[in-house]
């Protein structure tokens, strides 16, 4: 096990900056998830920790020791890849013990280790089979067994569950989290799936365009986004983003003539008084359609159910937004739209950065 540190890491591919000045320390035994859209640099960062990609500048440190020049086989890492990387010509057993054999571990030790991982992953029945005969989920389980068999300093996982059926993925996700806590191995996990990130991570590293946007524990990532990107990337359905104009007695929403009254202490007074244009971010779970008085009247477009939750969409000017319909008996298209005051997030319209209110919710 080891502490992994990235110092001003940059990686370029022929002029294209895939990773741009990334610094981060992953504590010993921590489970860190790199999250971000495709092409944000998360996989490249992971591959540079593995030693499969060279840093253009900056350092990769394992327990304080610079490992930039070491190849993947010289670093004590294990990795699970997104797509099948089992050796098709070797049996499951041979696949799992491959890293031990490649390193010349004695037969006795190999046998003991094999028994140990076979137990953990319940692979006893599969050992004699070949990868081609297993479903994708079981293959990734074998890949994971192969990864942990030699006590790596760090376990690197590159979207390991994305090629697995939805049903089995849930189960694997749970097992993976359980296994990581059991082994206590430093783990870095890359995904574009926020549910995986939210449920597995000690800390999430949100990346976009090669840079780190925000590093925080999952809950804070949701409730306390640092900018519009973080706010909209996390949470499903996505956070509503509404243009604001300060008017007498509140905030005018978009190009409608609806004014939202907000308590003074919930507003970023300094930004308003400086005349900065702001945007309002509010998650659908914080916008309700209710029968209770006190909301604003906005035209409701559509009401639809996803399982037990009933969503509605409403229109401000040309833009359609989402909310949750909380009315006991779903009525017509007329409704009173409530905005939870503690769910209101303000962003600088020019930079996209979050503008804190006077009082934290």
């Amino acid at each position, binding site marked *: 096990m080891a502490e992994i540190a990235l110092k001003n890491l940059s990686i370029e591919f022929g002029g294209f900056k895939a990773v741009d000045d990334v610094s981060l320390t992953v504590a010993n035994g921590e489970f860190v998830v790199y999250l971000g859209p495709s092409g944000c640099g998360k996989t490249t960062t992971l591959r540079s920790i593995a030693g*499969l990609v060279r840093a253009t500048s900056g350092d990769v440190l394992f327990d304080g020791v610079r490992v930039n020049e070491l190849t993947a*086989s010289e670093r004590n890492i294990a*990795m699970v890849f997104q*797509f*099948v990387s089992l*050796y098709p010509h070797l049996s499951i057993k041979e696949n799992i013990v*491959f890293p031990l054999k*490649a390193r010349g571990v004695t037969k006795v030790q190999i046998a003991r280790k094999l028994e140990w991982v076979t137990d953990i992953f319940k692979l006893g029945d599969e050992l004699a089979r*070949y990868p081609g005969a297993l479903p994708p989920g079981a293959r990734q389980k074998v890949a994971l067994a192969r990864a942990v068999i030699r006590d790596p300093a760090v376990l690197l996982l590159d979207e390991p569950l994305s090629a697995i059926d939805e049903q089995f993925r849930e189960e694997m996700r749970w097992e993976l989290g359980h296994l990581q806590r059991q082994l206590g191995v430093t783990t870095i996990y890359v995904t574009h799936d926020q549910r995986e990130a939210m449920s597995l991570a000690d800390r999430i590293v949100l990346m976009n365009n090669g840079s780190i946007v925000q590093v925080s524990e999952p809950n804070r990532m949701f409730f306390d986004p640092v900018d519009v990107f973080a706010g909209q990337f996390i949470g499903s359905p996505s956070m509503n983003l509404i243009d604001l104009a300060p008017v007498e007695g509140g905030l005018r929403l978009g190009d409608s003539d609806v004014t939202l009254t907000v308590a003074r202490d919930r507003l970023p007074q300094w930004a308003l008084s400086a005349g900065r244009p702001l945007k309002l971010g509010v998650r659908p779970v914080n916008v309700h359609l209710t029968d209770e008085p006190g909301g604003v009247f906005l035209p409701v477009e559509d009401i639809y159910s996803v399982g037990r939750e009933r969503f509605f969409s409403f229109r401000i000017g040309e833009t359609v937004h989402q909310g949750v319909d909380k009315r006991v008996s779903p009525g017509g298209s007329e409704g009173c739209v409530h905005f939870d005051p503690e769910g209101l997030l303000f962003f600088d319209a020019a930079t996209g950065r979050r503008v804190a209110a006077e009082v934290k919710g």
Partner: protein
Amino acid sequence: MVAYPFFSLIYYSFHNFSALRQGTMKPVGFKNYTFLLSDPELWDRFVFTGKFVFICVTLQMLIGIFVGYQMQKNFRGRDVVFTILMMPMMLSPVVVGFLWRYMLNSEWGLVNFLLASVGLAKVDWLGQTTPALWAAAAADTWMWTPFIVLLATAAFRGIPETIYEAAEVDGASPAYRFFRITLPMSAPVLFIALILRLIDSFKQYDLFVALTGGGPGSSTETVSFAVAKTAFSYFYTGEASALAVILLVIIIGLSMILVRHLTKIGEKY
């Protein structure tokens, strides 16, 4: 279309028959076969052919796999080098035979010229049995190694990059990766290449016609050469047919063993 020549071949092989004297066909049972199999001269043909096949296939596979592994890597000018490498394969065996015959000429050939220029004695390459065997094997290898290179390169390139990355992460050295990943994963293709070269070199005939003419004496005649000579120099059609059938049986037997082995490899995937 396939059956007629095949069955007439078998039919002739049981008769005393010469294509020069039509209408004199006489059934003789297995006499052609017993005569051939008890002929020590024929066993010499088989031994020579066996040696030739063994040398050719071994050299071609080893060199072919080595070069194929180099060609699998990306480097500048790879496509040009690859195209040049493929050229010998496109020539006719007769042309290759004459080309090597000129190069190996004991008086004015390129090979002896080079030997002499570094102070070594000239060798009468095509006038002695063993040098002639090696000369023929060299010519066949020069011509057909590209074929192995072609298939090996394709097989090596077909292995996904993640497999290599996984092996590297797993701590496998380059040599370990080559022997435990690259070779076994390309085994089915390499095996097919091996079978094709085995069959083809076993039947080699035209190269010898051009290169050695079967000489000195008849010491570099392959079995195919002997078939042709029996059939078209002596016109012992029945006997030649019997020999062709023997050759066919050997090749089919050999291929079947190899194909069975190939299927076994294939079952794992």
